[in-house]
């Protein structure tokens, strides 16, 4: 008698450890049949299972009600905006997203980027606005070669005059006349 009572008590103790897993449907088929075989004979374990069920109902109902009431409008709004932007990106939206500097601010690279841009502009601005219509330091005539003539190059910057004058030698003169 004592032995049998001890055997039921020890089985009940091992089943009660499985009860939670059984309730969460995490038991193996073997454990399931073990629990389901024990429950009809053990009112204590049945009571424990009932209390778990009641506790779950007690917690679940208010949470579900709150979720239904809340409906998370701001989340939906954000998702819908995202979908619309992907579907049809207008010129203005494109410009806005292109000019949007917030990601730059977040990454803390705006200041170095602006500094680099300013340096580049400072370097390139003199080249862009440099007057290139005349060569004040360079001659218009780069070189002159002649085996037949003596050559004189006359250049003035103001007024802009450049003349290459050929002085004919006696041989050339006689052949042209």
């Amino acid at each position, binding site marked *: 008698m004592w032995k049998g009572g001890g055997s039921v008590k020890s089985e009940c103790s091992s089943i009660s450890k499985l009860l939670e897993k059984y309730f969460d449907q995490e038991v193996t088929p073997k454990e399931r049949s073990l629990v389901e075989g024990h429950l009809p004979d053990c009112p204590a374990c049945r009571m424990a299972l009932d209390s778990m069920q009641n506790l779950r109902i007690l917690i679940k109902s208010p949470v579900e009600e709150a979720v239904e009431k809340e409906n998370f409008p701001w989340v939906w709004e954000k998702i819908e905006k995202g979908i619309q932007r992907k579907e049809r990106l207008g010129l203005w939206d494109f410009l806005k997203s292109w000019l949007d500097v917030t990601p730059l601010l977040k990454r803390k690279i705006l200041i170095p980027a602006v500094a680099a841009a300013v340096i580049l502009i400072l370097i390139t601005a003199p080249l862009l606005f440099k007057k290139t219509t005349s060569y004040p330091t360079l001659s218009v005539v780069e070189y002159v070669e002649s085996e037949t003539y003596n050559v004189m190059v006359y250049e003035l910057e103001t007024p802009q005059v450049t003349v*290459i004058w*050929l002085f004919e030698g006696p041989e050339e003169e006689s052949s042209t006349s």
Partner: protein
Amino acid sequence: MRRKASFFVILILLLSPFFGDVAFAQVQVRVRVMEASNVGSGFDSSLRDLHDQLGSLFSFSSYRLLKDEKVSLSLNQSVLLSIPPERSLELTLINQRRVTAEIRVKITRQGRDLLTTLVRLAPGRSVSIGGPKRGEGTIIIALSRLQ
């Protein structure tokens, strides 16, 4: 991805002035051949823009236009013109740095080189080559870069 592409576009735009020298286009040059002499007087109307330049340098009383041609020069392609007296004028665009064109000018007679020169011409700028005799006059070739 889009931001990366934008960054590279801005970088290229900022650096483009450094690569301006490699851009080539056709260069228009006006070639005028005139005979300057002290026989008679007069100034051809087609030479009006050169009046001040020629007048300040030479004391000829007459300038008569013999040839007036506009040529388009492409890079490294020669244009040949026959000019009096019995000479050939060869123009070749060698290089173009920003607005200034580097043009090689070669004057030959019966295949013999008489003169080779390299001139830098900005738009509106002229260079005159003169000296060869023709009768009682002197030949002057004016090369003007058109705008």
